[in-house]
């Protein structure tokens, strides 16, 4: 269980300070798929960085299975939107995956099977000798996924990983991710500002308000069976509910509050 208890995050000092998050609280169950949804600049990346251990909290606590998160760890892996800069361009597809295994101290004779398994899972097993520059955007994202899964983290933290992909590739990546999630039972925290994407993927959607002092305005449970169909009336209903909530946030922005 990943517990976020009344987390407040202030960037900077005194006059130059900015209250990014205020009193954020949520319990994320093991194996849960949570989406963070909200307008640009509301603090989604900030919260994800806190969960990853890249940023510290100003007040409050974040615990994983009762232990405080103090820094990055191999139990949580972050996915970056820009896979091109997150990958190691001087290493081949296979070597990118090996990188984490080496650090983890996985014995050489066990590495082969792990690499085969995860590269097959993301359908990159026929491209193992290629360099990241020679992959398409979607392939790079899949490589990022394989590299992370290979070290068997408990939690995947994903910051708009598919935002830059075309609609078709994105749809393929969604079914990939859901398949992998169902196979491996990881906990996933997925940041997006695309309402449909969040309904397609999540068990729960946490909607964040505009900053400063952004908090969760609403947390919506999505109980639709998977694979989900955007044409489903229930899907549309949830969509409109979220849209109303976000429109409310927009209007707050307009009022300059």
């Amino acid at each position, binding site marked *: 269980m990943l517990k976020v208890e009344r987390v407040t995050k202030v960037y900077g000092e005194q006059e130059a300070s900015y209250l990014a998050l205020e009193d954020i609280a949520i319990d994320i169950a093991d194996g849960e798929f949570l989406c963070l949804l909200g307008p640009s600049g509301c603090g989604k990346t900030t919260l994800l960085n806190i969960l990853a251990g890249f940023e510290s909290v100003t007040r409050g606590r974040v615990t994983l299975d009762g232990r405080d998160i103090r820094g990055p*760890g191999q139990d949580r892996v972050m996915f970056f939107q820009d896979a091109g800069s997150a990958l190691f361009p001087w290493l081949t597809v296979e070597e990118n995956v090996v990188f984490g295994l080496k650090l983890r101290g996985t014995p050489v004779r066990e590495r082969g099977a792990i690499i085969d398994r995860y590269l097959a899972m993301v359908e990159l097993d026929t491209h193992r000798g290629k360099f990241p520059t020679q992959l398409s955007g979607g392939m790079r994202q899949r490589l990022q996924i394989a590299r992370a899964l290979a070290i068997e983290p408990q939690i995947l933290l994903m910051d708009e990983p598919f935002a830059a992909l075309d609609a078709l590739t994105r749809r393929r990546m969604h079914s990939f991710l859901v398949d992998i999630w169902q196979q491996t039972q990881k906990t996933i925290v997925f940041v997006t500002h695309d309402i449909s994407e969040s309904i397609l993927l999540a068990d729960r959607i946490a909607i964040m308000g505009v900053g400063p002092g952004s908090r969760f305005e609403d947390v919506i449970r999505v109980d639709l069976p998977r694979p989900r169909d955007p044409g489903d009336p229930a899907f549309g209903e949830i969509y409109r509910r979220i849209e109303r909530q976000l429109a409310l946030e927009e209007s707050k922005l307009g009022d300059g509050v």
Partner: protein
Amino acid sequence: MTTTSTAGRGTGRPGPRVSPSRGLVERLRPLLMVLASVGVFVLLWQFLSTFVLNPYMIPPPTAVAAAFVPMAETGEIFKHVTVSLVRVVIGFVLGSALAIVVGVVMGRMRVVYELLDPIIEFLRYLSPTAMIPIAVIWFGIGENSKYFLIFWGTFFFVLINTVAGVMRTPVARQRAAQCLGASEFQIFIFVVIPSAVPYIVTGMRVAMASSFMSIIPAEMLAADSGLGYLLQTAGMLVQTDRIFVALATISLLGFITDRLFRLLVDRTLSRYMAFVAAN
């Protein structure tokens, strides 16, 4: 720099393929164009020097070639080339090595950067030429003063590029490595330094070109051998043909060295030279 991929041997990357259906002419086109360019230039030069300009001021290519032959026969020109080349290579290697070491530390450790940057910003405006008099006083007229001057010229180019390369290592890449379990030191060695390689190599190429420029005044003012010395003595005796031989040799030497450097980089570092564009 927008290099995307450099075809590398032994790295499993496919090189650029020329389809066999393309004609021989099409394939040889780049070479033919270079030959045409040089040919036209030489012919024009010959014509102008012979019929329009004063052939004594600008000796025609035939006169330059005639001056070159005895210099090659006695080995005089090759002696000067070797001397200059050795000076450049030694100064360049020393300068690059120290600059890379200092550069990675500066790029990574803020205090070191803050302490050294003002001094470097100040010193880098002193060209090697400006340093000649003091170099001669410090190191004498022998080889050491030349090594020092080339070192001086190389150091700042490579240093500034190395620092930039280290600092521009994407945060996402470092954080990704951290998630995969890398320690601060491992990130430095296995992520930051490889990410800085393209910048370092670029700095070295610029430094190499500048080394060939700074060795000449150094040898003109304070040496008894080398291409700069050859240039200087030919100038004092007003031997324009020998001056032109020296000038052509300097150009050719710089050009060949740059190509060799690029070939070496391609052979050994090609996998580090790729920049990954955002998605």
